C-alpha cells in the first residue's frame, strides 16, 4: 500500500505585480522547501508530488528581484512589529515567533540565491520530489472543447515545464481535475504518462472501476489517478479550522467566528501538526487494511494545500511517520513504474469544482465568456494552418491562453473585482483579434513587452 501526497501551486501571470508571488514564496515555497531539506538531511524519503503551474513558474522566474524586495520588506515589517509590541508581552512573544519564522525563510531564500524553482529542480533530479504540471494558464479543459485549444493549453504547459526543469513532466493535474472525453488523447500526444481526475470520474467510468479510486485506470494509454476523498477532506478541514494554526497574515490563531481571539503560538501549532500527521497515518493504515482485503497494492492519492508553515510541517511529519512505520510513500510516476496491470476504461466527464462538473466555472454571470474563447481558438487554428507570421501568431496564442484562464470565471463567480476581471479578459481577447487581423508592428511589440509569457511557445500546436 502506498500514499502519494500531492500539493498544487498556481499564480496568475501578472507582470509588474509581485505581491502574490511574494506571498507564495513566503507562504508556500520556502516553508515547503525548508521541510523537504530537513527530511533530506535526516535521510527520510519525501516523494512529494508538486504541481507547479506554468504561470507560477513564469512569475517566480520573471519577478525574482521584486520577490527579493518583497521578502526583505516583509522581514523588516516583522522587525518593526517586534519593536512596536515591546511593551505588550504576549503580543511581543508572538511577534518574535513570527519574525523568527520569517528570518529562517529569509536565510533559506538567500541560500537558494532567490531561485526557488532551481531548488525544486535539484530535488526532482535527486528523485526526492516529482514535479508535475497543470494547463498552461489554468484553462479549464471541459469548457474549451476544441481539440486545438486543448492541445495549446497542454503542449505549451509541457514545453514550459521542460524549459524550467530540463525534462518533460510525467503527469498533469488539470485545473479542478477537469476532464472531458478526448483529453486523454491530448495528454498522450504531449507525452504525459498520468493525469489527475475527480473521484467520480473514476467511479462513473465507462466500465465499472474494479479497484475504485485505489488504483488508476488507463485511458488512451495514459493513467488516470483520483484522490482519496476522505483523507483529502480531513486535511482540508484541519487547514481551515485547526484552532492552533494561524489565521493567515495575522498574529491570531484560527479561533473561528468568535470575538475571543487568541494569539498564535508557533510551538503549539507545530506540535499539533505532528499530532495530526499521526492521526492521518493511523487513518491511512486503517483504510489500507480494509482495501487490502480486496487488492494487493492500493495507492492512496491525497491532495493538500501547502499555503502556510503549518501545512509544510504537516507534510514533513507525514513523511516522518511513514518512514518510522516503514510504510511506502510514492508519486504517481514512481507507482506506475512498478509495471502493474491496470484497468483500461474511459473516465466520466467530471471535475473537483463545486457541483462536480463545469457549473461553477460557467455560471449565468460568466457563461458569455465561452463563445468568445471558442471563436478565438477557432480563429487561431485557422491562422496556424494558413501559416501566418509566426511571431504575430505566437503573441496571439499568448493572449488567447491568458483569456482561457479559469481565474476569470472564478473571479466573476466570487464577485472578486468583477470589473477588473472583465476588463482584463476583454483586453486579451481584443488584442488577440487585433493581432489576428494583422496588427501593426508597434502594437505587436507593445503586447510582447507587456505580456512576455512562454518564450518557447510554438503556435503550431494549434495548427496540427
Amino acid at each position, binding site marked *: 500500500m502506498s500514499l502519494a501526497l500531492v500539493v498544487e501551486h498556481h499564480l496568475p501571470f501578472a507582470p509588474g505585480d509581485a505581491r502574490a508571488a511574494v506571498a507564495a514564496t513566503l507562504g508556500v515555497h520556502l516553508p515547503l522547501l525548508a521541510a523537504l531539506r530537513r527530511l533530506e538531511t535526516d535521510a527520510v524519503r519525501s516523494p512529494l508530488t508538486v504541481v507547479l503551474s506554468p504561470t507560477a513558474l513564469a512569475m517566480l522566474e520573471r519577478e525574482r528581484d521584486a520577490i527579493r524586495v518583497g521578502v526583505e520588506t516583509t522581514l523588516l515589517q516583522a522587525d518593526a512589529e517586534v519593536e512596536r509590541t515591546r511593551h505588550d508581552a504576549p503580543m511581543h512573544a508572538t511577534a518574535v515567533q513570527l519574525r523568527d519564522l520569517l528570518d529562517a525563510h529569509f536565510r533559506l531564500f538567500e541560500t537558494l540565491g532567490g531561485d526557488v524553482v532551481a531548488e525544486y529542480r535539484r530535488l526532482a533530479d535527486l528523485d526526492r520530489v516529482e514535479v508535475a504540471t497543470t494547463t498552461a494558464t489554468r484553462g479549464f479543459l471541459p469548457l474549451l472543447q476544441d481539440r486545438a485549444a486543448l492541445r495549446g493549453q497542454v503542449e505549451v504547459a509541457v514545453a514550459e515545464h521542460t524549459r524550467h526543469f530540463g525534462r518533460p513532466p510525467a503527469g498533469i493535474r488539470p485545473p479542478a481535475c477537469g476532464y472531458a472525453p478526448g483529453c486523454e488523447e491530448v495528454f498522450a500526444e504531449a507525452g504525459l504518462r498520468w493525469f489527475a481526475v475527480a473521484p467520480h470520474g473514476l467511479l462513473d467510468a465507462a466500465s465499472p472501476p474494479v479497484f475504485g479510486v485505489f488504483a488508476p485506470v488507463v485511458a488512451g494509454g495514459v493513467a488516470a489517478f483520483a484522490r482519496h476523498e476522505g483523507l483529502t477532506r480531513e486535511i482540508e478541514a484541519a487547514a481551515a479550522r485547526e484552532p492552533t494554526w494561524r489565521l493567515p497574515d495575522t498574529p491570531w490563531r484560527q479561533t473561528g467566528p468568535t470575538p475571543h481571539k487568541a494569539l498564535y503560538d508557533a510551538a503549539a501549532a507545530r506540535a499539533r501538526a505532528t499530532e495530526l500527521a499521526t492521526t492521518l497515518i493511523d487513518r491511512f493504515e486503517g483504510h489500507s487494511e480494509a482495501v487490502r482485503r480486496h487488492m494487493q497494492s492500493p495507492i492512496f492519492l491525497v491532495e493538500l494545500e501547502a499555503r502556510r508553515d503549518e501545512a509544510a510541517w504537516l507534510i514533513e511529519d507525514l513523511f516522518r511517520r511513514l518512514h518510522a512505520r516503514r510504510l511506502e510513500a510514492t508519486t504517481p510516476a514512481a507507482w506506475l513504474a512498478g509495471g502493474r496491470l491496470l484497468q483500461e476504461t474511459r473516465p466520466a466527464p467530471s471535475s473537483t469544482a463545486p457541483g462536480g462538473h463545469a457549473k461553477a466555472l460557467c455560471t449565468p*454571470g460568466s457563461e458569455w465568456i465561452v*463563445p468568445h474563447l471558442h*471563436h478565438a481558438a477557432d480563429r487561431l487554428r485557422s491562422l496556424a494552418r494558413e501559416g501566418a507570421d509566426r511571431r504575430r501568431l505566437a503573441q496571439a496564442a499568448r493572449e488567447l491562453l491568458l483569456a482561457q484562464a479559469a481565474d476569470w470565471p472564478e473571479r466573476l463567480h466570487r464577485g472578486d473585482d468583477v*470589473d477588473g476581471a472583465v476588463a482584463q479578459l476583454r483586453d486579451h481577447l481584443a488584442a488577440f483579434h487585433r493581432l489576428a487581423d494583422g496588427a501593426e508592428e508597434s502594437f505587436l511589440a507593445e503586447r510582447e513587452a507587456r505580456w512576455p509569457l512562454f518564450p518557447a511557445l510554438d503556435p503550431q500546436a494549434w495548427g496540427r
Partner: protein
Amino acid sequence: MAERKKREKKIAEAPVAPAKPRARRKPAEAPAAPAKPRARRKPAEAPAPLPEAPAPLPEAPAAWRTPAPADWPALPVVTGHDHIVAVPIDARSALLYWELTSEGLTRARASLGGAEHGVELILRLYLIGRGDETEIRDAPVGVWLGHRRISFDHDGLRLTAAVGFRAGDGFVGVARSNPVQLPHAGPGSDPVRFVDASGARHPVPAGVETEALRRLSAAELFR
C-alpha cells in the same frame, strides 16, 4: 541592528510596484432566466437533415437582425457563418450558443414555401435518453445571436440542438450543433478490461471483485 539598516538601505534603493487597491463587489448579476422550453414527445426518429441551400435569395428583412444583448462585451464575436454549439455544463444542463446569418435565415425562410404567419425562430433540442427514444423540445429564441442555458430532468442525455424556423408542424433548421453526451451518475456498462504497461490486453486478474472497492470508494466520497 546593522543587518536591519543594511536591509532598509537595500529596500530603499530597489524599485517597488505601487500597491493597487483591490476592489470587491457583488457577483455579476445573472440575466433573467430563459423561458422553460416546451416539451413534446415524439417516437424515435433521427433529426431531419438540414435543407440544401437554394441560391441566390434576397437579403433577410432587417427586423430579423436583432441586436446583440446589451451586456455582450464589444468584441468581434460575429463569425459570419451559421452555427450553434452545445457545451455540457453538468449532468442535467448544457449551454447553447448560436449565430445565424441573414443569408442562412433567408434560405431557411424560403424553404418554408412562403408561409407568412405563425413562423417562429426556435431552438429545437433532440434528446436521447438511456432508452434510445428521441424526445424533441422546442424553445422560442427570436434572436440571431445569443446563448442560453438549458436544464433537463434526467442526467446522461445525448443532446443535439438545431436552430431554425418552425411553421405549424414543419421545421427548417439553419444550423445544427455538435452532439454532446451529458455526464451520467453511476458507471457505464462497458466490459472490464486490463492492460499492462506496454498496452497489451490481459484477462481480469483472478480473485478481483468488481463491486467492493467501488462501494468503499463511494463511501469515502460521500461521507
